[in-house]
C-alpha cells in the first residue's frame, strides 16, 4: 500500500456500478409529459374512479398550484420541471391481472431478475432461493412468508397471497382496487395523516397518484405474514407517484416492507410518494424500507429525486408505529418518516441508515409529535457519507402542552469515509410541557486507517474490512429489519460502498 492510503483508498469508495440499471422492453401506455387539470382527470378516468376521488384529486391539484418548493433543506433544490414529466405509464394490455398467469412474462421476468419472485410458492422478497436461511446466530431457519404487491411504473401488476390473507379479514391490495372495493375505508382515511396541502410534493402526489398499496388489518388480528410492496420505475421521463395507506384497527399488528429500484437513465426521475399509517388502540405497525433507487453516476448525471412524505398517527392509546429505513439509492433523498403520538402511552420509533456517496444528497430524519400523555419516542439515525456525498439528519421532537411525561431519546451517528464528504445534523426541539424528558446524543467518526489495518492484520482485505466496519456501525438499525430483509440490506450496504476504498 502507498503512504497516503487513507484518503486515496477511501476516496474510491463510490465506484461500484448500480446493479438494477437494466430496462424492461415492454409495450407501454404512456401519457405525454405535462401537468394540468386534464392530466388529473385522465388518471382518475383511466382508473375508473368515483366522483369523490376525482374531486379530492382536483382539490389537491388546486393546492399544488398555489404552493412553492421548500427552501429549508440542506441542498440547493434542483429545477423541478413538473411539465416535463409523464404522469402515467402502464404496461399495455390489461393492467389488472386476475391471476399471475395473465401477467406479461417479461414483467414477471423483471421482478424475478430483481429477486422479487411473484410466484407464491417462492416465499421471499429479496432473495431468490426457497430453502432455509442462516440467521445471525448461524442457525438455519425457515424463511418467513412474505406477501408482495408489485408496482411497475404507475400500476400494481400483482399482489400475492391475497386469498390467504382474506381468511383473516385482512385487506391487502393495490390502492386502485381499494378505491373500487372499499371506498368507505379509503374515504375515511386518505389524507387524514398527510393532508393534500401538507407540502408541494404531497399535493402533487394527491393529485396524480397512480397506484400504491392498501392494507387494512381488522380488530384483534395479527397479520400472519410480512406484507410488502416492491416499486419499480421503468419508463423514461416518468415520475412515480404511489400512495400507500395502512390501517391497523384496535389490537392489530402488521409488519410491512417496501423496496424499490429503477433503471439507469441519464435524466433525473421524480419519485414523490406518500405513505400514511393509522394505528388504533393497542395496534402496532412496523414499516421497513430498503430504498435503492438509481443514484445517478459518479458525476451526478441522472438518478432519482426521492421526495417522499411518510407519516403515521398513533391514534389510539398504547399504539406503536415503528419506521425503519435503509436509504442507499437516489440522487436526492428528502424524506422524514414521522409519527404523531396522539393516543396516551403511544410509542413512535425511527431507525435509519442513510448512505450518501458519489454526488448523492440525503436529507432525512423524522418528526415525533407528542400530543398525548406518557408518549414516548426513540430516534436512531446512522448517516454514512463517502465520495462527495452529503448526509444531513434533520429531526423535530415536539412536545405539546398536554403531553405530560413525554420522553424522547435521539441518537445521531455519522460516519465519514474519505475527506470530501459531509455529515450534518439539524435537531430541532419544541417542548411546551415542562414534564418532558429529552435526551440527545450525537457522534461523528471517520473510518480510521487504524481500524482497517487491524482487520487487515487478521487476514481481512480492505474492502471486506470497510464492509464490516460499516455494517457494524449500522447494526442497531439493521437489527430492526425483518431477518431476511436485514441480510439483503447488509449486502446492499456492502455493494453500495464497494470500490469506495481501494
Amino acid at each position, binding site marked *: *500500500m502507498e503512504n497516503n492510503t487513507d484518503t486515496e483508498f477511501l476516496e474510491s469508495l463510490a465506484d461500484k456500478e448500480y446493479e438494477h440499471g437494466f430496462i424492461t422492453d415492454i409495450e407501454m401506455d404512456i401519457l405525454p409529459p405535462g401537468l394540468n387539470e386534464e392530466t388529473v382527470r385522465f388518471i382518475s378516468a383511466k382508473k375508473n374512479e368515483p366522483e369523490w376521488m376525482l374531486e379530492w384529486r382536483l382539490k389537491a391539484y388546486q393546492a399544488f398550484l398555489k404552493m412553492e418548493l421548500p427552501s429549508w433543506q440542506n441542498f440547493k433544490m434542483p429545477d423541478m420541471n413538473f411539465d416535463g414529466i409523464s404522469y402515467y405509464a402502464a404496461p399495455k394490455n390489461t393492467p389488472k391481472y386476475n391471476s399471475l398467469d395473465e401477467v406479461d412474462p417479461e414483467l414477471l421476468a423483471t421482478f424475478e431478475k430483481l429477486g422479487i419472485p411473484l410466484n407464491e410458492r417462492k416465499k421471499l422478497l429479496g432473495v431468490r432461493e426457497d430453502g432455509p436461511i442462516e440467521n445471525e446466530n448461524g442457525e438455519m431457519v425457515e424463511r418467513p412468508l412474505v406477501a408482495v404487491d408489485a408496482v411497475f411504473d404507475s400500476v400494481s401488476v400483482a399482489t400475492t397471497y391475497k386469498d390467504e390473507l382474506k381468511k383473516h379479514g385482512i385487506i391487502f391490495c393495490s390502492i386502485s382496487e381499494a378505491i373500487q372495493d372499499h371506498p368507505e375505508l379509503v374515504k375515511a382515511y386518505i389524507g387524514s395523516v398527510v393532508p393534500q396541502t401538507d407540502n408541494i410534493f404531497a399535493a402533487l402526489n394527491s393529485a396524480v397518484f397512480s397506484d400504491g398499496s392498501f392494507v387494512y388489518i381488522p380488530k384483534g388480528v395479527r397479520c400472519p405474514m410480512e406484507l410488502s410492496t416492491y416499486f419499480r420505475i421503468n419508463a423514461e421521463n416518468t415520475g412515480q407517484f404511489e400512495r400507500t395507506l395502512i390501517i391497523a384497527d384496535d389490537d392489530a399488528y402488521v409488519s410491512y416492507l417496501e423496496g424499490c429500484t429503477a433503471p439507469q437513465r441519464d435524466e433525473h426521475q421524480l419519485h414523490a410518494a406518500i405513505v400514511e399509517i393509522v394505528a388504533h388502540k393497542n395496534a402496532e405497525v412496523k414499516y421497513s424500507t430498503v430504498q435503492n433507487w438509481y443514484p445517478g453516476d459518479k458525476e451526478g448525471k441522472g438518478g432519482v429525486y426521492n421526495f417522499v412524505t411518510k407519516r403515521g398517527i398513533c391514534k389510539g392509546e398504547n399504539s406503536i408505529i415503528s419506521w425503519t429505513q435503509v436509504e442507499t439509492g437516489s440522487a436526492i433523498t428528502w424524506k422524514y418518516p414521522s409519527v404523531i403520538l396522539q393516543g396516551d402511552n403511544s410509542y413512535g420509533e425511527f431507525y435509519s441508515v442513510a448512505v450518501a456517496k458519489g454526488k448523492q444528497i440525503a436529507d432525512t430524519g423524522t418528526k415525533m409529535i407528542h400530543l398525548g400523555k406518557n408518549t414516548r419516542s426513540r430516534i436512531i439515525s446512522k448517516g454514512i457519507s463517502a465520495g462527495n456525498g452529503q448526509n444531513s439528519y434533520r429531526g423535530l421532537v415536539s412536545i405539546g402542552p398536554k403531553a405530560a411525561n413525554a420522553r424522547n431519546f435521539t441518537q445521531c451517528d455519522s460516519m465519514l469515509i474519505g475527506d470530501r464528504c459531509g455529515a450534518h445534523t439539524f435537531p430541532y426541539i419544541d417542548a411546551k410541557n415542562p414534564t418532558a424528558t429529552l435526551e440527545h446524543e450525537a457522534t461523528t467518526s471517520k473510518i480510521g486507517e487504524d481500524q482497517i489495518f487491524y482487520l*487487515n492484520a*487478521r*487476514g481481512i*482485505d480492505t474492502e471486506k474490512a470497510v464492509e464490516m466496519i460499516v455494517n457494524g456501525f449500522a*447494526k*442497531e438499525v439493521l437489527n430492526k429489519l425483518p431477518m431476511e430483509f436485514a441480510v439483503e440490506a447488509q449486502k446492499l450496504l456492502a455493494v453500495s460502498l464497494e470500490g469506495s476504498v481501494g
Partner: protein
Amino acid sequence: MLSIKNLHASVEDKEILKGLNLEVKAGEVHAIMGPNGAGKSSLASVLAGRANYEVTEGSVTLDGKDILELSPEDRAREGVFLAFQYPIEIPGVSNINFLKTAMNEIRDYRGLSPLTAKEFLQMSREKQALVEFDAKLVNRSLNEGFSGGEKKRNEIFQLAMLDPKLSILDETDSGLDIDALRIVSRGVNKLRSENNAFILITHYQRLLDHIVPDFVHVLSDGKIVKTGGKELALELEEKGYDWLK
C-alpha cells in the same frame, strides 16, 4: 523461519530502523527490549505492513518468501500475527463473527474450505478454555468497552484461533495487572510449539519471568546492539540501557 537483513525503514522521511538484522527459527522465542523510541514498535509495524512505514533498504523473508512485497492481509494469511499494543475497538462487529471471517479468509488463501459453523464453534470453545478467555467477551462487539487487560487477552485468544507461524507481541504486558499477566503468559506458553515462533517486544523483564525467551535482543537507535540469553534481561533490569550506548 524469519530472516531480517539490514532493514531500514522510515516514517515521514525520518529513519527509524537503521540496518536491523534478526534471525528467528521455528520453535524459538525472542525478546526485544530497549529504551523508549528505539524502534521496537516500529519493527512490529513494519513486519505487519502498516502503511505509513516505508522500507528503504533491506529484506524480510518468512520461510524464504519476501513478505515486504505482500499486503498486510496477505502477510497475515502467510502466518504473521501482530498482537497489538493498542487493540482497536470496532463497534457493532461481533468478536466471534470477526474471527470467523478472519479465519475463513486465511483458510481460503491457503486453499482450504471454510470451517462449518459447528467446527468453528467447537474450536472457539477449545481455544477459549486453553487461553482462559471469558466466554462473555466472545459475543460482544470487537474490543468495544473492553478493559485494557481484556483487550490484550482478546489478542491472545485471536492468536490461539488463527494459529500463526510467527507471532509478534507488541508490549502485550503493558497495562496488565499481575493476574492478567499470568493468564496471558500461560496462554502463550501453551501455544508455543516446534512449528511456531514468537517475538516479544517489551520494556520490562517481568514478562520474561513468565514467558522464558531463548534470546534477548537490545534494540537501540534502530539497530540491535546486543544479543544474549535470558540472563541479559536481568542484567538490563539492574543496569538500565545506558551502558550499552
